[in-house]
């Protein structure tokens, strides 16, 4: 793969053949030219209606059609919508809650706190019934209302949580009628459940502050306790994506040569305005709302668990949602392109929105410093809170990285973990981990992941996001 250096952090894949735009890769050093993810960046550049670049963030790795860490904006009228550009876990995302607690005061109780969270929030395969199974009508309300559905039912840190979610925790274009019975069946009893794999709930301490002004505004005080929740749309979202791919993969030829000649069938897509495109869009946005409701219910459960374990009132805990971001989504957004305002559909697959200071879409409380950008790392090291920048708006459609990205396959990680007690190793470093499946700790150990510090450093050096604070885990629950 030919790569042209643009800057220390940016490499371009020149436009050639049927690519409509060049590829642009943010990277820690020169990307490996034979990385198959780079070919995917080039493939995405063939998408009908794509604007400016096919982008890749520094945590890029191979995915289905789109690389994970890929961003592609297409014209909202003429462009293609691609389920692979969102991913199976629609609106997988992360939120951070701040609290009035200090790490020092809860560290002696971290086992009790972690154990209570583990008891109260279903995790792992078959996780269900965090709340009673939803009726068809209730599930429809979840798919329409998103985070607000859960807040109305008392699952919240505070009553204004939804206002501190990307898009207010709800995509208005959701069409619950486009969510199939099968997706309903998979999701009806999964609201409020964590899932497995790289999903987690963490009790973190604010270990370091890089931007005191922004950290103060975000409510991140050195030594204070924060809660991170990383999860998505569970079986409902997986089923929506699965069905869309099954429908679109064999039928692209009907939309003309641009679609028929896409270089990778995994880039299954349809015109946004087509029947199939509209169906997927409506269902995907409904699934996104399910994910917001899911994370919101877990927020309420986590607040209760903390209060119970620490024998505190919610008033003493003073939990507050800092922000909630999507990592896998496609949304209509307005961006300035070549000097004019355009309405685009921005696919972010393993990438995070990172809107800059002054943008009216950023909550008013944060508008002066930019949108909080939440970047989870692995369970043994650290995560980061960044802020969006004006440069991100100019260069990446207001997008940044999303996490660490895997280095090792699950089998390779388990081989490396053989003979070790990952839980004991973490405990010796002051990190309490409880996981439902025995092999989770091996599969998810730090050595299996890239160092997220290097990933965020690229974004910071490129001016795409600004470092605000580093969080370090004290207690972790996983599936």
């Amino acid at each position, binding site marked *: 793969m030919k790569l042209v250096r643009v800057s220390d952090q940016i490499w371009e894949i020149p436009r050639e053949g049927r690519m409509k735009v060049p590829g642009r890769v943010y990277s820690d050093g020169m990307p490996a030219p034979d990385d198959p993810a780079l070919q995917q960046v080039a493939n995405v550049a063939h998408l009908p209606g794509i604007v400016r670049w096919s982008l890749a963030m520094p945590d890029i790795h191979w995915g289905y059609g789109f690389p994970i860490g890929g961003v592609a904006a297409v014209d909202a009228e003429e462009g293609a919508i691609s389920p692979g550009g969102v991913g199976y876990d629609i609106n997988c995302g992360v939120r951070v809650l701040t609290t009035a607690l200090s790490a020092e005061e809860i560290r002696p109780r971290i086992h009790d706190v972690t154990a209570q969270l583990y008891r109260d929030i279903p995790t792992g395969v078959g996780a269900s019934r965090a709340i009673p199974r939803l009726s068809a009508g209730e599930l429809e309300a979840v798919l329409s209302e998103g985070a607000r559905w859960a807040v109305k039912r008392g699952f919240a840190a505070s009553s204004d949580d939804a206002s501190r979610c990307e898009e207010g925790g709800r995509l208005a274009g959701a069409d619950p009628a486009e969510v199939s019975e099968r997706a309903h069946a998979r999701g009806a009893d999964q609201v409020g459940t964590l899932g497995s794999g790289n999903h987690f709930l963490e009790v973190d301490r604010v270990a370091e502050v890089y931007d005191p002004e922004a950290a103060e505004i975000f409510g991140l005080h050195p030594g204070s306790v924060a809660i991170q929740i990383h999860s998505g749309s569970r079986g409902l979202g997986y*089923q929506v994506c699965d069905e869309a791919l099954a429908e679109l*993969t064999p039928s692209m030829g009907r939309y003309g040569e641009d679609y028929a000649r896409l270089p990778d069938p995994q880039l299954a897509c349809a015109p946004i305005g087509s029947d199939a495109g509209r169906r997927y869009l409506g269902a995907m946005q409904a699934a996104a709302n399910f994910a917001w409701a899911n994370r919101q219910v877990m927020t309420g459960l986590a607040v209760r668990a903390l209060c119970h374990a620490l024998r505190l009132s919610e008033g003493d805990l003073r939990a507050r949602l800092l922000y909630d971001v999507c990592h896998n989504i496609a949304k209509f957004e307005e961006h300035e392109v070549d000097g004019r305002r355009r309405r685009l559909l921005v696919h972010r697959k393993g990438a995070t929105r990172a809107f800059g200071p002054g943008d009216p879409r950023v909550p008013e409380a944060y508008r002066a410093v930019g949108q909080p950008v939440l970047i989870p790392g692995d369970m043994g090291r650290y995560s980061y809170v960044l802020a969006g920048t004006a440069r991100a708006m100019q260069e990446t459609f207001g997008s940044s990285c999303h996490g660490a990205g895997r280095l090792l396959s699950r089998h390779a990680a388990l081989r490396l973990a053989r003979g070790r007690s990952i839980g004991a190793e973490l405990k010796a470093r002051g990190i309490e981990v409880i996981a439902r*499946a025995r092999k989770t700790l091996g599969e998810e150990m730090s050595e299996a992941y890239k160092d997220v510090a290097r990933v965020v450093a690229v974004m910071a050096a490129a001016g795409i996001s600004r470092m605000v604070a580093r969080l370090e885990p004290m207690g972790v629950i996983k599936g």
Partner: protein
Amino acid sequence: MRYSLPQPYQDLSHTADLGVTVEGASAEEALSRLVLALGAVLAGSGTLEVAREETLAVPVRGGLAHGAVDLLRELLYRFATERVIPCACEVLRLDAEALEARIGFGRWDPARHADGADVKAVTYHAARLERAGGAWHGQALFDV
């Protein structure tokens, strides 16, 4: 011919997800082993006994590999909603138009199958069900 767990399969090394490859003397054998490889991935090291049987039919659109993936998708849906895992398979029909299989399902047990994988989806990527080098090869990649 009816095949039951355990059946041989190989893990495909993949950074983000799980993959399996199988071989068989016939397309039916390879497909049965692909079905049971999914069962093994879901069950982990736990055992299974057939608790119920079902005949499943899927159209073969876009080739045998595509049809195989569509069968596996049906099985995953049943795992997701009924908590049953395929542990026996007899292919009744496999041709350019349709695929039909009689599947024996065992019940998932959270304790016995605790190290089973949480498979989100069966993907079409790199799916194979084809004859090469004198044997039939099956391959599927699962999103986890």
